[in-house]
């Protein structure tokens, strides 16, 4: 049984803590089932399932800490693991940045666990693959897809009285559909906590439509274009911005949030005033962990309000050093959108490019947050409010900071990789070359 109940987990953690002799001891026990099915060329290649449980101990003497972990939960193994962890801690060098463990905290439960997702079995996975492959094969299209599902728990307790327990489930499904002659390719991806929200058939239908519509793409000149980024494409780039809100890097002068002459750009208006970025672990569409990586309860936060930087992440160590409150990195972020549908956004576009997704995105310059990458699996030219024809893929060189100053409009949101991201219409997006890739 890979998922321990809260009581079972607490009993084991308390037992380990009773064996401990270190100044401070922390015990985590976590586990779960991970399953997957992968298919390509309209046939299943691999599928599997694994169940794992692991217990990890951290022992601290002064500012020296050590860890050990095991998969066996019998008394003798637990005792041995405690001894080993304490032995490693005694031998470790001091960590001047070590922060004492937190005591008891109040966490609010978030709805991260959905029973239906926990019930996924090999038959479900095979059916999901069949629902995706069959319509493709029937339409002379070639499907390659992947589902990964997870159901698990994590519990943690320490010698200062902290205890926490959480269960969670997830499903991540992606599908690429290509035409048999290789001239068209489409893609769609979805992630949920609740498998009932996933229909592989519906998601595959989107990829099929894109594959057929993207056949025989035409080349248009690279340059600056108004782009409509579907939420998947927008999410590919926005995550690069929102993951960079670390106060320490900014204070140290090595971040786009560093201020000329020293300090950070907190309070500065860096983006268009329609940009609002928040996080909330209790959001039902993107529920996330009830605690942050330092162990504090995860709170709803505002990161950017009307284009102004309002908050950055502060680790406990850095917060203490700067004399501010610690703020953890959120589980998922919410970028405010609007009511416009994708169709509305296309309709109001005189000349532009619709982007399904980006690929192989790499940092070019951390100073300006410049990234490069390519469009992939469905790129279309828009003229006078209509999709005119598929276009060859482009390489871009662009910074999400510049993008968020060039907003034409923000559309409806969609969950993308645990974040809520709107479709975005952006002017002057920089495409620097063409690619023949389909």
């Amino acid at each position, binding site marked *: 049984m890979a998922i321990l109940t809260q009581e079972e987990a607490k009993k084991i953690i308390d037992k380990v803590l009773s064996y401990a002799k270190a100044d401070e001891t922390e015990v985590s026990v976590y*586990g779960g089932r991970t399953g*997957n099915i*992968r298919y*390509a*060329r309209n046939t299943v*290649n*691999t599928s*599997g399932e694994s169940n*794992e449980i*692991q217990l990890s101990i951290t022992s601290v003497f002064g500012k020296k800490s050590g860890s050990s972990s*095991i*998969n066996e939960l019998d008394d003798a193994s637990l005792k041995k693991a405690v001894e080993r962890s304490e032995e*490693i801690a005694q*031998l470790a060098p001091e960590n001047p940045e070590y922060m004492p463990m937190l005591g008891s905290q109040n966490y609010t439960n978030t709805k*991260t666990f959905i029973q239906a997702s926990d019930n996924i079995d090999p038959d479900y996975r095979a059916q999901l693959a*069949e629902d995706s492959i069959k319509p493709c094969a029937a339409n002379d299209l*070639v499907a*390659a*897809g992947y589902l*990964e599902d*997870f159901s*698990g728990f*994590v519990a*943690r307790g320490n010698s200062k009285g902290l205890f926490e327990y959480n269960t*969670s*489930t997830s499903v*991540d499904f*992606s599908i690429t559909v*290509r035409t048999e002659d*290789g001239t068209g390719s489409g*893609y769609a991806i979805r992630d949920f*906590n609740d498998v009932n929200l996933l229909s592989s058939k519906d998601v595959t239908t989107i990829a099929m439509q894109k594959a057929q519509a993207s056949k025989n793409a035409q080349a248009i000149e690279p340059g600056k274009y108004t782009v409509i980024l579907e939420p998947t494409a927008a999410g590919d780039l926005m995550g690069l911005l929102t993951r960079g809100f670390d106060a320490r890097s900014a204070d140290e*002068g*090595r971040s786009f949030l*560093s*201020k*000329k002459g020293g300090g950070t750009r907190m309070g500065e208006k860096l983006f268009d005033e329609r940009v609002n970025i928040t996080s909330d672990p209790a959001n039902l569409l993107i529920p996330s*962990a009830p605690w942050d*990586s330092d162990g504090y309860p995860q709170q709803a936060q505002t990161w950017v309000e009307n284009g102004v930087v309002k908050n950055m992440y502060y680790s406990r160590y850095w917060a203490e050093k700067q004399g501010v409150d610690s703020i953890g*990195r959120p*589980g998922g972020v919410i970028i405010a959108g609007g009511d416009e549908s994708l169709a509305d956004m296309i309709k109001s576009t005189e000349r532009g490019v619709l982007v399904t997704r980006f*690929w*192989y995105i*790499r*940092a070019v310059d*951390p100073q*300006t*947050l410049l990234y*490069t*990458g390519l469009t*992939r699996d469905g790129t279309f030219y828009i003229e006078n409010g209509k999709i005119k024809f598929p276009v060859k*893929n482009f*390489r871009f060189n662009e*910074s999400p900071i*510049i993008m968020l100053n060039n907003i034409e409009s923000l559309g409806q949101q969609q969950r993308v990789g645990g974040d809520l991201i709107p479709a975005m219409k952006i002017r002057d997006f920089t495409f*620097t*070359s063409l*690619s023949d*890739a*389909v």
Partner: protein
Amino acid sequence: MKRRDFIQLSSMGFGALATSGLLMMGNSVSAAQLLEPGIDAAAKKILADTALNAALAKGATYTDVRIGRYLNQSLFTREKNVQGISNSESFGVGIRVIANGTWGFSATSNVTPDGIKACAETAVAIAKANSKLQIEPVQLAPVKGHGEVTWDTPIKKNAFEVPVKEKIDLLLKANDAALENGAAFVNSALFMINEQKYFASTDGSYIDSNIHRLWPTFNVTAVDKASGGFRTRQALSTPMGMGYEYLDGLAKDKVMNPAGFNSYSDSYDMVEDAKYSAIQAKEKITAKSVTPGKYDLVLDPDHLGLTIHESVGHPLELDRVLGYEANYAGTSFATLDKWKSGDFKYGSDKVNIFADKIQPNSLGNTGYDDEGVKCKEWDLIKDGVLVNYQAIRDQVSILGENESNGCAFADSWSSVQFQRMANVSLKPGTDKLSPAEMIKNVEKGIYILGRGSYSIDQQRYNFQFGGTVFYEIKDGKIEGMLEDVAYQSNTQEFWNSCTQICDKDDYRFMGTFFDGKGQPSQSSAVSHGSSTTRFDGVNVINTGRNI
């Protein structure tokens, strides 16, 4: 909830790296435990036979079993502090079978006769279940059994035997060298891996391998607070299939490059490179911003390796060509019809690229691959023409061959083996030529060292690469440092613009420790050998922006 959220849920109290992988990456242990011997080969043979017999009894027509003990040690420092010391051990068995003409795989950490028997039976059951969806039965290229053999990475100094303190002292000494020379920040790390793999198959092979790899690296940052500018400079080390002797930094392994500082071949002077790094990171802040246009590029092996990896290594993986990676890494422009034509000019006549898993000191160096095939060297591009791919036992029949190239690999006992990149290397030029002599003939060019930003499309046509340091070449001379440089090209156009390759005296490796592929993703380590090489008239863009 995404996996990263789960990792965050479970991350407290552990070093960042200890939780950056999957849940099943192994257990944290002490450094001393990494030196404890695993079970001996005779015991492993008995366990392996248990698996082979159990699968056969359930109807498997082929079985292979890998009993793996994977040991890792990673050390992390920042400026004057040790940030983390991580030791891990992962031990288990992976069993792969063919039943009803279909693959099945199962893995277990229960390394007992009962656990292994049950695991083998599960693998057969999965194969039989999946066979209902099978379109064509697996065709496995024959392999003659090797009997009981062993293979060890020929290391001189086992990195796990070097005391942790000695290794930490080296990292902190490198950090000091960077700080003393003007770095604002420096992070350094040392990764060490020992794979103890026992492979057995129904072909009659029992292969006991002991493989070592290591990677010392750092990242130095210089900051000019007044202007708000900062620049980083990475180590010019490379991961190697070597022991701790790679860190000896021997004088004979230092190569004074045309930019006036040392590059490294078979051993690395980390402290010296850290000093150069700080000086160069500072210089980068005020270096001249490149004027976009066409330049002749002179690429150092420590840079060119990644270009080879992305624009030759990946597109010539047969599973990508066939569409098995379509939903993730992508497919390939190097389609079978181009190969069959026999005259597809991948590059200029100078370009000869080979694959292998046998070059000494390389990351791919191993006696046998993960399906029991003896490793070898073979040509991919000959005199500029595409001649072959990288393929494994169940793929080579598609190429009309009956011998695997020997490049199957699994990153853990719990992962199924599949086709992974071998070392892919550019043959040195046959005429005597040094990098300095090459540069003498370049009128308008850029000399690029080290890996930087790299991005390539899903069929491997269009790429953009940066680097670590760039120097302007004018009328045969190095004029000074450049910044904001990236080159954009098309794979075939780029390799056809190759006009000169330095000789074998300049041949060095560049490697990558964490090459990702597959779903669920597996990582592998691979080296790329080359000598400094010239490419003419390549499009260079300026990546500077104002925000």
